[in-house]
């Protein structure tokens, strides 16, 4: 499997606080890779470091074999797109869906915008009726669909997903997860997905990395979660916690 995204010994420091401590990972082309951990474990920071949203202290990031510099070029942002956790905060409140989707097209100089917007909305199951609505006229699930459409419209090859369904109801979460799987299959995308929910990661990803205090605790295949074949105590604790409350 060719490497699509490779992170090597990445360190991120905020003032004196070290958010990431020498984290490495390698995601193959077309693979779906999960990051789990509690709040403050550094999983979102890793995603943001890859996207260029937080400064990297040391270490390297390579996309498709090419090392990234300090400043990302335009081609990078076309290749790598991100979907954020909070669909209420990640869409501009005073722009219509149409305007939101035009923005990335304008940035990357696409000419056939009309067609692309229609296709993108269709692909995420929204239809043209939603095109001229504002985000406050949409439900949480619909907003997340718009955010996914906005990421897909520039035809990326990697999607960075930061807790894409944790703000949604379980039933809506199922719909959005199904949609993400569908587009990944159709477009042969590579996913790097963050979640605090082990079950979501086990469902969506082939491999995953467990993080704690900015460090990688364990890397394992999703199938070993089902068979409880984990070596670290911390992973076992997370597994146990995901089973719900047990009266002692």
């Amino acid at each position: 499997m060719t490497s699509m995204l490779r992170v090597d010994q990445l360190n991120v420091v905020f003032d004196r606080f070290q958010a990431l401590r020498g984290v490495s990972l390698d995601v193959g082309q077309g693979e779906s890779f999960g990051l789990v951990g509690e709040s403050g474990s550094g999983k979102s920071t890793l995603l943001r470091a890859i996207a260029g949203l937080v400064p990297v202290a040391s270490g390297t990031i390579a996309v498709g074999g090419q090392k990234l510099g300090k400043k990302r070029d335009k081609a990078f942002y076309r290749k790598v797109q991100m979907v954020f956790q909070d669909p209420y905060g990640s869409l501009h409140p005073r722009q219509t869906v149409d305007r939101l989707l035009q923005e990335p097209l304008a940035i990357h100089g696409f000419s056939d915008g009309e067609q692309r917007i229609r296709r993108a909305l269709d692909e995420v199951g929204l239809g043209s009726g939603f095109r001229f609505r504002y985000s406050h006229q949409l439900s949480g699930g619909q907003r997340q669909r718009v955010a996914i459409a906005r990421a897909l419209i520039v035809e990326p090859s990697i999607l960075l997903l930061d807790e894409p369904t944790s703000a949604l109801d379980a039933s809506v979460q199922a719909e959005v997860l199904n949609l993400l799987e569908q587009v990944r299959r159709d477009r042969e995308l590579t996913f790097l997905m963050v979640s605090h929910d082990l079950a979501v990661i086990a469902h969506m990803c082939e491999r995953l990395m467990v993080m704690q205090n900015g460090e990688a605790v364990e890397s394992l295949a999703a199938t070993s979660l089902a068979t409880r074949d984990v070596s670290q105590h911390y992973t076992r604790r997370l597994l146990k916690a995901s089973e719900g409350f047990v009266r002692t």
Partner: protein
Amino acid sequence: MSALLEVEDLRVTFPTRTGVVEAVRGVSFSLGRERLGIVGESGSGKSQTGRAIMGLTPPQARVSAAKLSFDGLDLMSLPGEQRRALRGNRIAMILQDPKYSLDPVMTIGRQIMETLRTHEKVGKTEARERTLQMLEAVQIRDPKRVFDLHPHEVSGGMGQRAMIAMMLIAEPELMIADEPTSALDVTVQLDVLNILDRLVADRGMGLIFISHDLRLVSSFCDRVIVMYAGKVVEELKASDLGRAEHPYTRGLLDCMPRIDADRHPLPVLDRKPEWAA
């Protein structure tokens, strides 16, 4: 078992520009000294049900009920002052996010003392003593240190424990917990639930646990009410959850990804208009 709380045909409506929104539409249940879960998606009316019992419905909304009685007291006709005396004393509520529900400019200890002294005539020294005991009861390791901290100086799990301590210090008979652990990490969630569970069992309180997480609720409560569009669609013993009959309950259980099952795509809820009828 005599009922601690009886709710019959509870309705909460909000007037809006586009007409009346019925958030709660005829909810009935009774509660003894047990753990009752109320589950539903956002907008199902579960939180408004809890708030109506507490008497915290926003002023523009209208509450009506054929019966809303707590330990023989008719909450609907109770004057405001007496209602206020109940709140925090005999009926308490834990909210979702300690970041927003604790006073940011008061130390944790003072906030808890304030609650106690509002409801009971106790001196400062005794109030402090009991506050420290309470902080210990919610498994805060160093109560003396936490007493003097402000809410922003503690973690989410610690904040929620402080919140529980504050709610329990007046020794309420009924506790309403509205998503008490949703803002916490999974491992912390279980710690907090353990504390809540023990305190409820020891003190023989009635607990209403409101949550969107059907599985968590069923593992914690004795009985579960499932709400959809402001109505109760199903009521069942938590242990019988696997035998739920309503398609909505079944759908909610079914649509969650599981670690040990490979289901692609996930089953989704097919909402039927008659569920809301």
